């Protein structure tokens, strides 16, 4: 009995090995139909030996990959996947999880370096999701107009880079970026202005909170009506969406400096400007970045929604809505992939800047954000 496995890991190992054993038995009647699958089942069954022999976690990783490969290689061209192949899906998923569990444990124990391997884990998770998606859509022959397989989406992606790029430029470069910048800067400036006057603050904050709860979907058609079809109306929606989170967060942030820190400034008879620049804005940094991060995902969603309500015939939202109408669902998913990649990258960039600028905050010093 290996002592290096935790309870969860043990269960996963049993599931993986058990599915291998069952799968092996179930493939015997059709032996030779899917040789790769047979090999996978055999090795998975062998992995049960870990209970008596040491079994490196790298082997688990290799098995997860082998399982994924075997599954995809033996997917039927059409019709349903043989029933026992689903066992392979469960087994390779369990191997992947087990691998990740043990990898994380190894990193924690300091046996592996944090950088690099830390990135592998989310990647594996994503890959596992994609493999499951591929196998389920194709194995259960889900209609491509309901959910296309990732491979089909990737093919479409590769074939339509021109369209995707044009849409990306229209939506992201022309609408999201200007809207985001204007909305955030305006939110910040108004927050600073409001902060000076308690009267304005008392008046605007409840309304700001009210507005930030406003469903933007409703604003989108109005903005299209006001600012026309092109990117201006989309940017306007983005401004409206990003303004209030920034306002609310910055006002909270400007109050984040502690009394004693402020008293210190007051003992120096520092001017309002000096207090703002040297104390309150730096102290508000984490709050401002919080808003910047929230807004980075909101902005993209806002622009895309706005494009549902009228556009020139280009843009991610346009392509998505017409794509659904034309049942070009693979193109729709390709656009969604672009949106997700762009959005994550945007978020990542902001998070990196945050690490640099608010290096002093405990949440950053402490490690992961």
């Amino acid at each position: 009995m290996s002592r290096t496995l935790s309870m969860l890991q043990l269960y996963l190992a049993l599931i993986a090995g058990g599915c291998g054993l069952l799968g092996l038995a179930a493939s015997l009647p059709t032996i030779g139909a899917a040789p790769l699958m047979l090999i996978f089942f055999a090795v998975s069954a062998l992995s049960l030996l870990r209970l008596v022999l040491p079994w490196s976690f790298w082997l688990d990783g290799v098995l997860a990959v082998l399982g994924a490969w075997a599954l995809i290689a033996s997917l039927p061209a059409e019709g349903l996947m043989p029933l026992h192949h689903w066992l392979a899906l469960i087994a390779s998923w369990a191997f992947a999880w087990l691998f990740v569990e043990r990898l994380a444990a190894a990193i924690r124990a300091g046996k592996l370096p944090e950088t690099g391997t830390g990135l592998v884990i989310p990647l594996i998770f994503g890959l596992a999701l994609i493999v499951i998606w591929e196998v389920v859509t194709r194995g259960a022959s889900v209609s491509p107009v309901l959910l296309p397989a990732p491979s089909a989406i990737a093919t479409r992606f590769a074939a339509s880079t021109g369209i995707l790029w044009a849409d990306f430029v229209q939506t992201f470069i022309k609408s999201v970026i200007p809207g985001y910048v204007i909305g955030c800067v305006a939110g910040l400036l108004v927050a600073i202005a409001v902060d000076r006057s308690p009267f304005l603050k008392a008046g605007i904050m409840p309304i700001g909170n009210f507005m930030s709860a406003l469903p933007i979907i409703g604003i989108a058609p109005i903005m299209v009506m006001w600012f026309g079809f092109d990117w201006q109306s989309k940017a306007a929606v983005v401004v409206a969406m990003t303004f209030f989170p920034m306002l609310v967060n910055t006002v909270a942030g400007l109050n984040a400096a502690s009394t004693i820190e402020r008293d210190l400034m007051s003992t120096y008879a520092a001017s309002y400007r000096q207090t703002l620049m040297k104390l309150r804005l730096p102290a508000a940094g984490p709050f401002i970045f919080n808003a910047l991060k929230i807004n980075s995902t909101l902005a993209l969603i806002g622009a895309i929604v706005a494009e549902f309500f009228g556009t020139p015939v280009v843009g991610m939202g346009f392509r998505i809505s017409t794509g659904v109408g034309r049942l070009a669902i693979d193109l729709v998913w390709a656009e969604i992939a672009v949106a997700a990649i762009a959005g994550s990258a945007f978020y990542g960039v902001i998070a990196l800047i945050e690490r640099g600028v608010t290096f002093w905050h405990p949440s950053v010093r402490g490690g992961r954000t």
Partner: protein
Amino acid sequence: MEASSLGLTFPAGDGDIVALSDVNLTIDKGEFVSFIGPSGCGKTTFLRAIADLEKPTSGTLTVNGQTPENARKDRAYGYVFQAAALYPWRTIEDNVALPLEIMGYGSADRAERVRRTLALVNLSGFEKKYPWQLSGGMQQRASIARALSFDADLLLMDEPFGALDEIVRDHLNSELLKLWARTEKTICFVTHSIPEAVYLSTKIVVMSPRPGRVTDVIVSTLPRERPLDIRETPEFLEIAARVRDGLRAGHSYEEVV
């Protein structure tokens, strides 16, 4: 500095809290005054009132012959808070330079002063560190350096040596005395330690709580020049005993026990 029948009340939900009541005290220029008293007796509050961080609700208070507000606007004092209150986004050096920046010192002058005051509190070599990279005692010393970096006539220090161990404390005590002797500053100093109060002060103000008031003002008979071993002289012990008695008298704790 002069306070007459000073009172300060904090409004609170369930009845007001009287933090100071009928405080009469005169502090002359160049004096070293220690405040001692049980927790919550209003020492911090009194210092804050001098610094114009709280407004007295009754009585009058003048600092250098002006209102506390004008004194503050004149940048007449340096304040060392009970907590270090360093800005985490600034290095130690930049933290010490903060008041200098605000008061518009030139950058060469600034660098020179920072160097000098950091050396004084024995933090040379830590200029580029951030506050969270220092131990609590070092942070406290940095905050003392910050208050010393500009030449205020009046120093308000609220338990500045609370977080330090005895040896460092002794060292800083004698440094502070030297500084005081050299610069003729007026110093108001809050402490919980009787020997520290006696060792440093020309005048010891004993306070008692609920409501905060001055129960005793002891003028030290010790000479201005004080080696560390003055603390074993009978004169010293006598003053210390008097302070302890004053403290015990005002101490509500004894009654409870």
